């Protein structure tokens, strides 16, 4: 007994020693800055002797531009995530079937994920260009529109364009995560369903979907967090325009922090975004726990 206690003690010391470097970096880069941002947000201005108050948070509510960026972020998230899920699911189910050139198709699927979002957004900005862009050219040649559309300069159009770019960029990542989930479903389940006379559609809804639910929730969680903090896409694609209709919380807080240099006010914005993301994650995590296998 004495020996076991000693061993546990020694293991604890070594364990912490091994974890320490990572722990320190994570605390320095992630934990401390968030706490610090919260403290900044409780002071009206950046100085030692200003008083603690919730003034910044009160100001947020009456700041129309912040409310709009908040709404834009939510609208962006609530439209892109379901679209990505549907596309991702279709791609994953198709990729799970045996066919020729499956390897090549998988590489093609991985490319959009691997591209830097910032540069990707610039390329798309060119493609959505009113006069020279391939999008307008394509739409005109198939007869969907008659005149060139000012995609990035008109109100709902810019947001729609930004959502489509995001969906294009991330559906494939969703597909990869779902595909890994699909491959854990035993094949004989489908075979016995077939002998019982179930159609493909039926086995999708009664076997695939229920068994895939945990993987779906995990990938929705990852993507929702990403969508709620989207920054480089609006920064490079629309610059938040026209008239701030594509400005997200991240983009507006960046401007307040580094362009208007209002550090304390900007900190209250990032804290609101932080709380929003944490609440959403908790909802997802709770729903994973509620699934019984």
């Amino acid at each position: 007994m004495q020996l076991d206690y000693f061993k546990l003690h020694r293991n604890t010391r070594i364990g912490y020693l091994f974890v320490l470097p990572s722990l320190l970096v994570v605390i320095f880069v992630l934990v401390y800055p968030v706490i610090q941002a919260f403290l900044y947000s409780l002071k009206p201005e950046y100085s030692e002797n200003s008083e603690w108050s919730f003034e910044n948070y009160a100001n947020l509510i009456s700041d129309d531009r912040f409310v709009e960026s908040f709404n834009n972020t939510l609208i962006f998230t609530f439209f892109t995530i379901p679209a990505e899920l549907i596309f991702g699911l279709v791609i994953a189910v198709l990729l799970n079937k045996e066919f020729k050139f499956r390897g090549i198709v998988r590489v093609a699927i991985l490319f959009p994920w691997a591209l830097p979002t910032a540069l990707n957004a610039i390329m798309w900005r060119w493609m959505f260009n009113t006069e020279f862009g391939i999008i307008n050219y394509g739409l005109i040649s198939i007869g969907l529109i008659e005149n060139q559309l000012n995609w990035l300069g008109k109100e709902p159009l810019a947001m729609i364009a930004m959502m489509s770019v995001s969906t294009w960029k991330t559906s494939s990542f969703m597909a990869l995560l779902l595909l890994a989930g699909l491959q854990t479903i035993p094949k004989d389940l489908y075979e016995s369903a077939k002998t019982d006379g179930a159609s493909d559609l039926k086995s999708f809804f009664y076997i695939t979907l229920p068994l895939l639910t945990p993987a779906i929730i995990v990938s929705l969680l990852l993507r929702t967090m990403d969508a709620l903090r989207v920054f480089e896409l609006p920064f490079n694609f629309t610059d938040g325009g026209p008239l701030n209709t594509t400005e997200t919380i991240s983009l507006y807080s960046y401007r307040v922090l580094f362009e208007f240099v209002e550090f304390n006010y900007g900190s209250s914005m990032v804290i609101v975004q932080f709380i929003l993301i944490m609440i959403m994650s908790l909802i997802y995590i709770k729903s994973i726990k509620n699934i019984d296998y």
Partner: protein
Amino acid sequence: MPAKDIYAWPPKLFPSPGTIDNYIKIFNSSPELLRYILNSTIIAVFTTVTIILFGGLAAYALVRIKFRGSFSIMLGMLGVSMFPNIAILPAIFIVFKNLNLINSYPSLIIAHTGLFITMAIWILANYIRTIPFEIEDAAKIDGCGPFDIFWRIILPLSKPGIFATSLIVFIFSWNEFPLSLVLLHDNDMRTAPVGISLYPGEYSFPWETISTATFLSIIPVLIITGIFQKQIIGGLTSGSNK
């Protein structure tokens, strides 16, 4: 892509050949583009090496050394990995400013290490879990200490996992935007995504230079994903089914 193709109507899907000119031109007229790519490479390489060393040690300890609190640390790491990167911007900028590290490589390397290490530990832990206990036990009987076991047995045996994690971390670091934008804002210090996106002036947007530069800076990422897609997919998805 030559300028006449860029402003062509109808737009050309496949630009005409003779585009090497642009690449030569770009390095003569805007040498900073090469500098951006060099900066990105330095940042991504150092971030990856640090993460593999630190993260590998942590992953091994969390999965294999039974110690009090290891489960809570694992959960805590997963929790903080959900922190939005914008939330850390104000404080981390102030800290590095006080340390006089703004516009220096270490600032962004440290920031990227913190940002991506939790994900790396998660992936590495899943690989280390698959290494049979017997090998470790045999080494213990031979008198190997925990660090020896990590260095001589765990690291070599989890090569595929380390490889996959390195590729993913490299790509994440190469592509990261907001922190790179804020911490390295001198023109000489910018990373490729930031430098290229801030390159154009207000009124004349030099599309042919931009598209050439963009293509150059995504080449490393495209090559990596093209050759190692299996490892990357394996690494990316190893955590989602646990």
